[in-house]
């Protein structure tokens, strides 16, 4: 059974000048233990998708359609209190900036034991023992001493390790990680990604990894969803999407990334930029920038269809199969 199903999710922001549709019919699912990457440029809606799943959409943003199912049970209509029990216990969250996810006034030990006690039926002593084990598992040296330290006494990389420990504290089945390494240096980034992969595999937790870094996706994920202007443009096994992209946007994105292993005189560029959500073009949202655009793209909006090993929202694929 799939762990998480997102079906035709629509997120809207009502405003004075009409309602803005930030996510439009987003669908995907995550299997238990799987790592799904969600990649896209700023404003594509990747973080918003994560926020909708963990029930932390900022008002006035609201889910205006579709549904989210966790282990077959709808979670998109739960009230705040019920959602609070799911967050932490069944879905853990990791955010970009480790300093904002930790309370600077409490020791990391208190934050960890509090989370464990809130969600699991254990004694205080047992919670502390587990907290130390978690810190050890996430590669923090001398966890017996470090547990009584405050967040400011940790470096950036170490803080992100604490955040990972915190997300794993109540043994959730799913971790939503939104740009977990973006604020870190390259060398620390590699350590954190490997750690995240290792601890989730050991515990059988699935991960939804939101990032703009295609290299991180390539090294970490099983499948990847490429988002563009609030929709999923392509989804499929990570190496298929990277090596044989079916959507022209994915292809353009891959070619625009400088490869550290190869020399090129000029990078391929996609002209223009992503539309703002108040001015999404008709038909396929990518058509003004698409090198392979044709008549149908201007008027009709493509849905995800099978395109070999991946699924792509592109009329070219439709034509190819007909």
């Amino acid at each position, binding site marked *: 059974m799939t762990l998480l199903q997102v079906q035709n999710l629509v997120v809207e922001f009502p405003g004075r000048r009409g309602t803005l549709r930030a996510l439009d019919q987003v669908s995907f699912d995550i299997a238990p233990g799987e790592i799904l990457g969600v990649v896209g440029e700023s404003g594509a809606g990747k973080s918003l998708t994560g926020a909708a799943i963990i029930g932390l959409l900022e008002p006035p943003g609201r889910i205006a359609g579709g549904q989210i199912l966790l282990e077959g049970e709808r979670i998109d209509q739960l009230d705040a209190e019920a959602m609070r029990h799911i967050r932490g216990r069944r879905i853990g969250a990791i955010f970009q900036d480790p300093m904002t996810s930790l309370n600077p006034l409490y020791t990391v030990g208190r934050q960890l034991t509090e989370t464990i006690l809130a969600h699991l039926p254990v004694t205080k002593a047992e919670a502390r023992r587990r907290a130390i084990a978690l810190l050890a598992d996430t590669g923090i040296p001398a966890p017996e001493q470090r547990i009584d330290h405050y967040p400011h006494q940790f470096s950036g*990389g170490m803080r992100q390790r604490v955040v990972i420990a915190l997300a794993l504290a109540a043994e959730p089945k799913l971790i939503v990680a939104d740009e977990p390494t973006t604020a870190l240096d*390259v*060398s*620390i980034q590699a350590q954190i990604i490997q750690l995240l992969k290792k601890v989730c595999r050991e515990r059988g937790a699935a991960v939804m990894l939101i990032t703009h870094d295609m290299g991180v996706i*390539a090294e970490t994920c099983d499948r990847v969803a490429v988002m563009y202007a609030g929709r999923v443009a392509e989804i499929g096994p990570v190496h298929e999407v990277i090596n044989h992209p079916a959507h022209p946007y994915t292809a353009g994105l891959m070619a625009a990334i*400088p490869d550290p292993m190869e*020399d090129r005189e000029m990078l391929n560029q996609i002209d223009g*930029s992503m539309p703002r959500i108040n001015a999404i073009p008709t038909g396929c949202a990518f058509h003004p920038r698409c090198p392979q655009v044709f008549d149908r793209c201007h008027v009709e909006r493509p849905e995800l269809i099978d395109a070999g090993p991946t699924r792509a929202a592109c009329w070219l694929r439709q034509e190819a199969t007909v």
Partner: protein
Amino acid sequence: MNTAAEVKTEAVASTSTTADAPLIQVRDLAMTFDVSAPWLNRVLERRPRQLLRAVDGVSFDIPKGKTLSLVGESGCGKSTVARLLLGLYTPTRGSFTFDGQDAHAAFKTPAGNVLRRRVQMIFQDPYASLNPRWTVEAIVGEPLSEHGLITDPVALRQRVGELLVQVGLAEGDRSKYPHQFSGGQRQRISIARALATEPEFLVCDEPTSALDVSVQAQVLNIMKALQKKRELSYLFISHNLAVVRHVSDYVGVMYLGRLIEVADKATLFATPRHPYTRMLLDAIPKMHATGRARTPVQGEVPNPLNPPTGCAFNPRCPLANDRCRNERPVLHLAGTTQVACHAVEEGRG
């Protein structure tokens, strides 16, 4: 590697082999910040003065029309080098010679304005570096009127239009405000402003790290095309090795305020010598799986207020021995690469 051919030299960069002197010559540049507690605290709590050596003896050359990139992790001093070259800081030690002229002496005199015209900059964040209340015309035109290059308003208007077209914007964009542009377009406005005074040397501090990949490609392509057309020299500061590989001719790797390896791009990426450079290259996530597992860099950058003795990298280095812990290595030639590492010098690397 051919260790017999290694020649020990002074820490003097010679990235260029051309007979005439390179446009930019930096020798033993250093910047020390005093980060001591206030005087009263020092007296009452008997705390010593504390000095932060942000840049500690950096030397390099940039020939005309070429790009030198400085890479390193946060706090390694790369942005401080940029500010030193722009004259925003006065160095504690060392010199920066631009076209045969001592730049830091010149910055202090009225003639310094001529030099400022020839050395311009592009900043990281195009949201912070453009005044939101100014039109694009005012932003791009300011250096021209400030340096007294164009005083006639009609000519100024026309010149701003030309500059905008050069960076791929439209002439009509000059009456708009920064908020009407996307991040990539704003960075092009920054480039147009930097190019206004027809500089020969551009200092670019992380010019694309705030941009999305597809837009980053646009900006990098424009920068490369302009370099070709106008024989610009770039100092390109970045932490992204893939971008550095794309734009550079020469690459310098910095660690805790010092250059630890300088080489031409092809050599550095094909045969990195310093263990830190090798670790950095290893740490880049690869798009196309090479099949081999990466070995992530161990440990973290030490506190620059209290750097390790000897080689600053020794606590994280797999090759460190007693000499590395006690004696600080200087740059020496290994093949065509300049590297500051005892292990490479002794042939242990």
